[in-house]
């Protein structure tokens, strides 16, 4: 690619069926930026409707972007695109992982890897710059992710970055992950790799990422970001009252404070007061262990870790000697649902039991490569157990072999048995890992399964809430209907959870989305309005940009900052600056947002194509009833409830469809919009299939 920098310029295509390894020019894809965008474009063009996740015709794309590996803050995400086996339609979806994998991909000279076909025998992909080979995975197959990673590092060297599946992926368990660096996992597609007989990818890159900016401008931008960056999720106030801070929020992930330590470090490390001007202490701000593991987590924390080029460090690295009694390593690292999901499996736990469940569970699931469907796996188990369904559907011998007493007594050892069954598909119980919609059908769950708010299901496709109506009402709700799994979109949640007073958030909202009405006071919602729709679209578009460029959607957009002298305003143009300075393609914020809009619309088009219907409103964008029926003694839009209103939600959908230029009745992309976004080819493809609205 002679014109632009940032991109490596080449995409690697690996055909596992015939063993061919070829390269393509990234130029063909730069309108889609990278990562998620490249993934969607390849899938739309090359994977016909009707193909299922484990079919040979499916593909899986690992993508970086033009900003990945440049070293500016928070630019190390890897996007993985394929069909999702746990979705009843096997619709297109993404997983993402942090760590160091995608920067290494760039250093090796590649922007993405397209994997297609199916190998006749287990293999792993070895990439050392331009030297790419398929190696026998005969000795790796059957190993967990930790051992697989160690073996490949023993072969390639410890500097190699490895992404691998565990036994869950090998066995084509629907709920399975792909993991790198031992604690950064991408949920959903491990089984796709397993179905293709590819165990892992190992990369060494010795080149560099060329960016366009002169060094001075690049450093200036880096310093600017470091000056306005907050803590994890761009929380910009501390969790306790602190001398430097005008505001605080106990829910904030800026947890550093006097008397809070990395308690298991080999020297005394106090997180202390980390004011926003001390950029050398950014890595201490987010002592996440006390959020994810409880107060007890402090004593076990060796350090905080994270991704390449990220100063925030949101992964808790803990040493738990008690895990050795379960024959597991005492060293565990993860964050958020990587720990929480195991708590969802268990019940009746003391604080210590909960801590052990989370850490043991992470050890087990991370090694097996088992995914939780954002916590739904555990909730499905408990629903089926407590409603007597398991006693009905499991053979008696199987039911009686399961250590239910351990579950009921909060004994973390239950997870050892449970996760083994899921991973190795032992017995009928293992179908829980098919995914919520599939198990609900298989075991004939009643309406109560879908409509109990404590079950947290969002869509009849079987994915749960992920910053849905509890996150600014219609904004979160709309975001949760667009994707084909739980949306990993934090653009809106970061803003809502910034910790700033609502009045200040409203002022900033007015500047960004046209009106203070974009933001409601939590649990005191108002009907849908234009500003909320703009906020929603912005959130989705930015999410697509981040997963394509790649930057971390848990930190960006930086709409707020911790700086009183900026009146707590952040800088939403950073992504455009990153992109422009890296590639040399000067784009404004609006121009870059248009590229993100293209990617979201392409996702929508692919979903239409796969579902073979334009009626997205009624076939795809459906929300389960509890969202509207909860709190029966309260009306929607009254103080004290987060329930939504059906008519208002339909209106919200219509407004969002219109905002994207989709058909207001069906929510399908129109010919005109696809053309406007430079996707006439997509429009023609859908048109031929009769999948354009009013066609």
């Amino acid at each position, binding site marked *: 690619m002679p014109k632009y920098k940032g991109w490596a310029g080449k995409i690697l295509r690996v055909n596992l069926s015939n063993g061919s390894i070829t390269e393509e020019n990234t130029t063909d894809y730069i309108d889609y930026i990278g990562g998620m965008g490249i993934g969607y474009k390849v899938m739309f063009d090359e994977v016909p409707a009707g193909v299922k996740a484990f079919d040979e015709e499916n593909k899986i794309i690992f993508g970086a972007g033009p900003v990945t590996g440049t070293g500016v803050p928070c630019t190390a995400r890897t996007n993985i695109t394929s069909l999702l086996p746990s979705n009843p339609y096997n619709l297109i979806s993404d997983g993402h992982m942090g760590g160091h994998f995608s920067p290494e991909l760039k250093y090796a000279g590649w922007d993405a890897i397209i994997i297609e076909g199916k190998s006749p025998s287990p293999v792993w992909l070895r990439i050392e710059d331009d030297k790419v080979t398929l190696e026998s995975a005969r000795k790796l197959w059957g190993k967990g992710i930790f051992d697989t990673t160690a073996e490949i590092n023993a072969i390639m060297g410890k500097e190699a970055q490895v992404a691998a599946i565990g036994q869950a992926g090998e066995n084509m368990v629907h709920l399975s992950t792909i993991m790198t660096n031992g604690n950064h996992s991408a949920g959903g597609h491990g089984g796709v790799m397993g179905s293709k007989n590819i165990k892992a990818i190992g990369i060494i890159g010795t080149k560099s990422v060329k960016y366009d900016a002169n060094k001075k401008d690049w450093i200036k931008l880096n310093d600017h970001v470091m000056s306005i960056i907050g803590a994890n999720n761009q929380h910009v106030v501390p969790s*306790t*009252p*602190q*001398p*430097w*801070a*005008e*505001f605080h*929020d*106990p*829910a904030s992930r800026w947890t550093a*404070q*006097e*008397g809070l330590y990395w308690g298991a470090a080999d020297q005394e490390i106090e997180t202390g007061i980390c004011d926003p001007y001390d950029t050398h202490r950014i890595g201490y701000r987010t002592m996440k262990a006390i*959020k*994810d593991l409880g107060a007890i987590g402090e004593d076990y924390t060796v350090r905080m870790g994270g991704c390449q080029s990220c100063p925030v460090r949101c992964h808790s690295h803990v040493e738990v000697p008690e895990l050795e009694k379960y024959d597991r390593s005492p060293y565990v690292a993860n964050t*958020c*649902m990587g720990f*929480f999901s195991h708590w969802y499996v268990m019940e009746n736990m003391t604080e210590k039991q909960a801590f052990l469940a989370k850490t043991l569970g992470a050890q087990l699931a991370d090694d097996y490569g088992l995914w939780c469907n954002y916590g739904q796996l555990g909730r499905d188990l408990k629903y089926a157990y407590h409603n007597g369904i398991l006693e009905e559907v499991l053979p008696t011998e199987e039911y009686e072999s399961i250590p239910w007493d351990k579950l009921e007594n909060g004994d973390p050892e239950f997870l050892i048995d449970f996760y083994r069954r899921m991973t190795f598909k032992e017995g009928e119980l293992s179908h829980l890992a098919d995914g919520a919609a599939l198990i609900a059908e298989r075991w004939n769950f009643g309406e109560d399964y879908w409509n109990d708010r404590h079950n*947290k299901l969002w869509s009849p496709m079987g994915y749960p*809430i*992920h*910053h*849905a109506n*509890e996150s600014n009402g219609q904004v979160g709700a709309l975001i949760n209907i667009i994707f084909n799994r739980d949306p990993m979109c934090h653009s809106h949640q970061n803003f809502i*959870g910034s910790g700033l*007073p*609502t*009045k200040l958030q409203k002022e900033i909202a007015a500047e960004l989305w046209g009106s203070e009405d974009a933001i409601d*006071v*939590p*649990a*005191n919602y108002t009907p849908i309005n234009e500003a909320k729709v703009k906020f929603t679209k912005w959130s989705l578009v930015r999410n697509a940009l981040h997963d394509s460029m790649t930057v971390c959607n848990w930190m960006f957009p930086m709409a707020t900052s911790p700086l*009183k002298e900026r009146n707590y305003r952040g800088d939403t143009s950073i992504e455009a600056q990153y992109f422009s300075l890296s590639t040399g393609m000067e784009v404004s914020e609006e121009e870059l947002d248009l590229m993100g809009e293209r990617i979201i619309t392409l996702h929508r088009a692919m979903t239409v194509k796969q579902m073979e219907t334009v009626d997205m409103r009624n076939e795809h964008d459906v929300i389960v009833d509890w969202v509207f029926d909860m709190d029966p003694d*309260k009306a929607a839009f*009254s*103080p*004290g*409830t*987060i329930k939504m209103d059906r008519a208002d939600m339909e209106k919200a959908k219509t407004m969002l469809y219109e905002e994207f230029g989709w058909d207001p009745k069906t929510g399908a992309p129109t010919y005109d919009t696809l053309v406007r976004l430079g996707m006439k080819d997509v429009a023609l493809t859908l048109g031929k299939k009769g999948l354009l609205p009013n066609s």
Partner: protein
Amino acid sequence: MKEKEKIDISEKLANLIRENSKNVKITVLAEFKDEKYELTDEEILKVIAEFKNEDKFSDIQILKGRTRYFFSDDSMSESYARTLARVEDKDLLKLIAETVRENSRIYPRPSDCRTFYKTPYNISEEIFKSVLEEMKEKEEYQDIKITEASNGVPYLYSDEFLEEEHAIALTEWIEVIRKEVP
């Protein structure tokens, strides 16, 4: 007071306030007497009142409580200074009530009772509970209400700024719902 003496005293007062603020300490009026400046309270206040006319002292701020408190906004926020002043006033009922009202008004959100057990409040749980009991008997604190999340954790709010239903929902949202969807 001679001009030179006034300048010297001003510098000393400001530097004391600034040093204390850097050390996360609010300066009380009585502290100046300890420094033996041989000035009355009124004279000290008069000197500090004139700070606002000089750029070099623009960081020095005054808060009113039982007495006067001083801080430098170069190293301490007003909200934190206000909290320290309330602590110094040693009126626990007022400290808790004003903090709860502020949270209910500004954010708005109910206040996690556990916050008061830690820095900068450092109230023991036992004393905190007895203060809440005492509040129930006093007219001026009738707006301070208690609610519990579904996990039993208590929160306080002021019904002057938050309706009961809203406070209950917010308590659940903060304490339970937000944590369940990390």
